[in-house]
């Protein structure tokens, strides 16, 4: 029942860890969003040090995103040009994020930064999702709103890019059918790369809305391209965490992978049978619950007043 993790220096119930992977993978498949932002806090809750949890989760995301990228590539849903620009930014951001963690590990602030980043990002995403789903549920009950929404979506969208259009290095992305400055995806990729290193997440929960609302890419290309970029960003983050911080626990990643791979498939099947907005609001509540747990840990007096140096 127990497996010893040589880097985390912890003996964990492997069925529990596989179960966590299964649960988060199921949510991933069910809601169509990433599990990384839930996995790292859950690992912290079972006693894995935050820096190990974040770095190992990045390793696990490499496998999950590789699986997804492969499927979307077969369907022709990956904009490789956009993905490469995002990747350049992601590599820079990943390297910067790992160095931030390295510096803060030495001063004892890494755990605090990881927790605060989670509070801010999860709080924002959870609140946005909650109110968006609530509005969608209210409108679904009102036929007048449904008709108005349908008319609005049928109308042609005027693309006003303002500041983005004034930037240099404008280029056309054939697959997505959009024109942007190369600096835009590079900057966005850098931002997501920093988050990936700090939080141990792929950043899909941020990248997907950014691609839809800011880069105005078509939905079917967004997910595949996001996964492509995330796969490479997390590969870099995993490698750098191994060489700089020595915080990737390979065995822990394998256990998580075993669960998440199957959980994602089960979640995908279940998701087709359930109502989308109800699922979204449930996910929003889950995200906000995780945020509340982390906030409580930050504001309540800890049971232990001493902690290991460097997070592990």
């Amino acid at each position: 029942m127990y497996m010893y993790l040589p880097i985390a220096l912890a003996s964990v119930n492997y069925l529990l860890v596989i179960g966590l992977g299964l649960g988060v993978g199921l949510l991933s498949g069910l809601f169509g969003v990433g599990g990384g932002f839930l996995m790292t806090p859950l690992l912290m809750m079972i006693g894995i040090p935050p820096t190990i949890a974040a770095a190992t989760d990045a390793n696990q995301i490499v496998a999950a995103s590789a699986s997804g990228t492969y499927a979307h590539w077969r369907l022709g849903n990956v904009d490789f040009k956009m993905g490469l620009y995002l990747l350049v930014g992601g590599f820079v951001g990943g390297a910067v994020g790992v160095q931030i963690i390295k510096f803060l590990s030495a001063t004892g602030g890494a755990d605090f930064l990881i927790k605060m980043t989670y509070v801010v990002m999860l709080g924002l995403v959870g609140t946005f999702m909650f109110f968006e789903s609530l509005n969608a549920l209210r409108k679904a009950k009102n036929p007048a709103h449904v008709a108005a929404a349908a008319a609005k979506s049928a109308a042609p969208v005027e693309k006003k890019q303002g500041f983005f259009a004034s930037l240099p290095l404008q280029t056309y992305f054939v697959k997505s059918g959009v024109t942007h400055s190369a600096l835009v995806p590079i900057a966005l990729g850098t931002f997501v790369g920093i988050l990936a290193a700090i939080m141990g997440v792929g950043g899909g929960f941020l990248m997907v809305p950014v691609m839809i609302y800011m880069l105005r890419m078509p939905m079917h290309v967004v997910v595949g391209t996001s996964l492509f970029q995330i796969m490479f960003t997390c590969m870099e983050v995993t490698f750098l965490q191994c060489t700089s911080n020595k915080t990737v626990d390979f065995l822990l990643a394998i256990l998580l992978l075993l669960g998440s791979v199957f959980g994602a498939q089960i979640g995908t099947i279940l998701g087709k049978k359930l109502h989308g907005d109800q699922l979204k609001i449930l996910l929003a509540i889950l995200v906000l619950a995780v945020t509340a747990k982390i906030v409580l840990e930050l504001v309540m007096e800890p049971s232990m007043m001493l902690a290991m140096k460097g997070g592990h």
Partner: protein
Amino acid sequence: MCKSIIRQFVIPLLAALLFLPLATVRSAQALTCQVNPNKVDINLSYHGATLTVTGENTAGDELIIRIGNAAGETHYKYMGKAGGFFWMKKGDVGFKNVPGVYLLYTSRDIEHLLDPAGQQANLIGYEALKAAAEMETASDELNGNEARWKEEFIRFKEHQNLYAIHSGTITRQHGAASDTYQAEVAWPYQAAPGTYTVEAMAVRNGQVVERSQVEFTVGRTGVVAWLSNLAFNRPAVYGIMAVVVAIIAGFAVGMVFRKGGGAH
């Protein structure tokens, strides 16, 4: 006069001669100590171990078994409030002259075995540990409250299962010439690999009268040793392996399901 000499010298002398062999036998009954197993392997299924400490002791003696390693220095971060609101790691604090592991098993409560001076002299009990420990920190906040932070140190070690006191847990069997004893030790998986000492002490009339010790080793083996060496000594190879295995696993699953795995 003669009777007086007999009373004062001869009878005591005869008595002494009579009981001398018994006293010799008593002192010859050296305290023994064995530990089984004497080598603990940290393998994939490791979740700590159960050690059995056994031995013989002079009939009637009380016993203390101390398991641990040599006293050394250890450093931590201490928690404090940042900006008066968030709890976070604030600064460094070190403790000198403290063992990494300290497990104590006794036949009775420590207070009934040794007085405070005896506890301190033999490093028995948390009060003795705290008295021997030296705290080092640059923080004025901590320097003014050394006793409280030494107590926090003990609590932290107990929380990690590396310090524990189990009173009255040594089982004894009385024999004709000597007693035998046994203690079941729950060895924590949190203890680092290394060499540890099991020291048995016989206590008579509030004094430690005999000691016996034996060593055992805790070491990584198999996959755990290999991965640990790779991660810390060849991190680039370890990193490439972690990435390559994850990619292969992801693509393999993608090929099997053809619909893709968990998205991000």
